[in-house]
């Protein structure tokens, strides 16, 4: 309901600006008709008019952008609320169950496992939010060290296999020529893990993800994460890397997320002098995410 009223107010502001511009134009035409003989005044008038119109347009532009941003922020708060409260609710439910009911040993072990998984999920969300804050601020510089990219990727893949209970053929890793990079271990790990997590999350029923590292040219090495999942429409390929942005549509709405993952990937790439982008043939045809980083000399 709130979103609808925002849409209305965006429309209202655009209408207001169009109205104001037409009033200005009308006044100006009248003014030209009255004083078309005096050249200097005419020139001055054109200048003022141009300033006025660009002012109104700029104002509207920023206002609309601000409203959009606010909307995304709301969506983010909603998503984070859900991501934080759900595991807490679950842990609490299981703790209270154990507190108030007789539970046999097998069930008890299962409950403990569930609670550990929930606390992992909670931790992941908290870390994601904290990392966004760290990376977003210009002050925090990456803690650079020479690391082997292949090793990092392999570690991330192994961790993802245990985390999502995947067989090696469901999440395959093809190592390329080894390359070392100058990077912040923690940040690069987070970026690669985010890409793998997305690939798994958006795979739909059957997970078939391949991760590969390959040197692009003499100066760059790339990590490519390829999935056969829901795919991405052309218009969204760039948008999805924006902070808080989440792909619209019924398929994506089923998948929980904060809208921070790819923003972190892109920020990490930028901080290391690299690039991150997505490729997709379109909805339903899978997608490939590429993280390209400079090779350390």
């Amino acid at each position, binding site marked *: 309901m709130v979103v609808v009223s925002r849409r209305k107010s965006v429309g209202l502001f655009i209408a207001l600006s169009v109205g104001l511009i037409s009033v200005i134009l009308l006044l100006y035409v009248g003014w030209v008709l009255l004083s078309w003989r005096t050249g200097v005044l005419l020139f001055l008038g054109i200048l003022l008019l141009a300033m006025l119109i660009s002012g109104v347009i700029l104002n509207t532009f920023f206002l609309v952008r601000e409203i959009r941003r606010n909307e995304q922020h709301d969506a983010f708060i909603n998503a984070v609320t859900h991501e934080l409260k759900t595991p807490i609710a679950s842990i609490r439910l299981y703790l209270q169950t154990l507190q*108030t009911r007789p539970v046999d040993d097998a069930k008890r072990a299962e409950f403990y496992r569930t609670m550990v998984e929930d606390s992992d999920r909670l931790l992941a969300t908290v870390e994601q939010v904290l990392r966004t804050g760290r990376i977003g601020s210009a002050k925090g510089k990456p803690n650079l060290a020479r690391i082997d990219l292949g090793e990092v990727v392999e570690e991330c893949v192994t961790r993802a296999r245990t985390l999502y209970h995947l067989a090696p053929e469901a999440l395959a890793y093809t190592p390329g020529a080894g390359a070392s990079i100058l990077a912040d271990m923690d940040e690069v790990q987070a970026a690669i893990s985010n890409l793998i997590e997305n690939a798994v999350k958006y795979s739909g029923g059957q997970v078939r993800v391949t991760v590969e590292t390959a040197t692009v040219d003499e100066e760059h090495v790339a990590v490519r994460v390829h999935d056969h999942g829901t795919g991405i429409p052309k218009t969204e390929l760039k948008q999805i890397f924006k902070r808080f942005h989440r792909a619209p549509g019924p398929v994506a709405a*089923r998948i929980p997320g904060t809208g921070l993952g790819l923003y972190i990937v892109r920020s990490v790439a930028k901080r290391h002098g690299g690039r991150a982008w997505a490729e997709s043939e379109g909805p339903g045809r899978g997608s490939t995410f590429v993280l390209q980083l400079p090779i350390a000399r």
Partner: protein
Amino acid sequence: MSRDSAHNAARRGAESQRPSGAVARAGRRALLVVEDERHLADGLRFNLEAEGYQVQVAETGEEALEAFAGGAPSFDAMVLDVMLPGKDGFTVISELRQAGQFIPTLILTARGHPDDVLKGFAAGADDYLTKPFDLAILIARIRGLLRRSEWVRSEAKAPLPQRPKDRFTFADKTVDFNLLELRVKDHVFPLTLMEMNVLRYLIQHESETVSRKKMLEQVWGLHEDTDTRAIDNFIVRLRRYLEDDPARPRHLLTVRGLGYRFVANPVKTD
């Protein structure tokens, strides 16, 4: 349902708020839990089954609607999450209500903003609880919902003299407590269980001013500091049904700062 079982229901309700062991009864009552988070769904199932209920879990809004699609479903109450894949909980409950399905429903969600709570009640929910929740309170509220629907049913089958009649007629309107209907001239408005309970309570206290807090306690069985504005929402809906001009109510009057008053036969002002 006999008066005896209504008595039983009342006694069960008066039991301690702590979850107890399984209640051994023939004909267990069935609950539908609509929850997409597997961990929560499993935990709820375990606890509700330990309470002696039969539990079915639906993971999406569509699945929940399907569970009711095949004619007369055998659920006595529903626990409904809001943020679901596909159709969300608000859509599910309002579609069910529109289709004439008045199953007692508790919305269980992480969304605790007053706007969300109001939206939930407006969509037709009977109760609203936010996550993270207290297990004992959740179970108490589910019991409350079941108890109330049992009372309604037992009243419908065995009306007691001191209780209001099955029908109540005022001005040109008739409330049928049995059929959950409100007839205004030629129109028939189906009422939800909670709408009818609110209206019944107001009719029972005709010409008296009843406070929002009192209504929450008596109609919902709540004693916490719940947002009492949820009631206003019910009043707005009831006014829409039974007032000629909902903006200038003549039957359901607001008593500023206190609550509401039901007037069956208002004095003509014109």
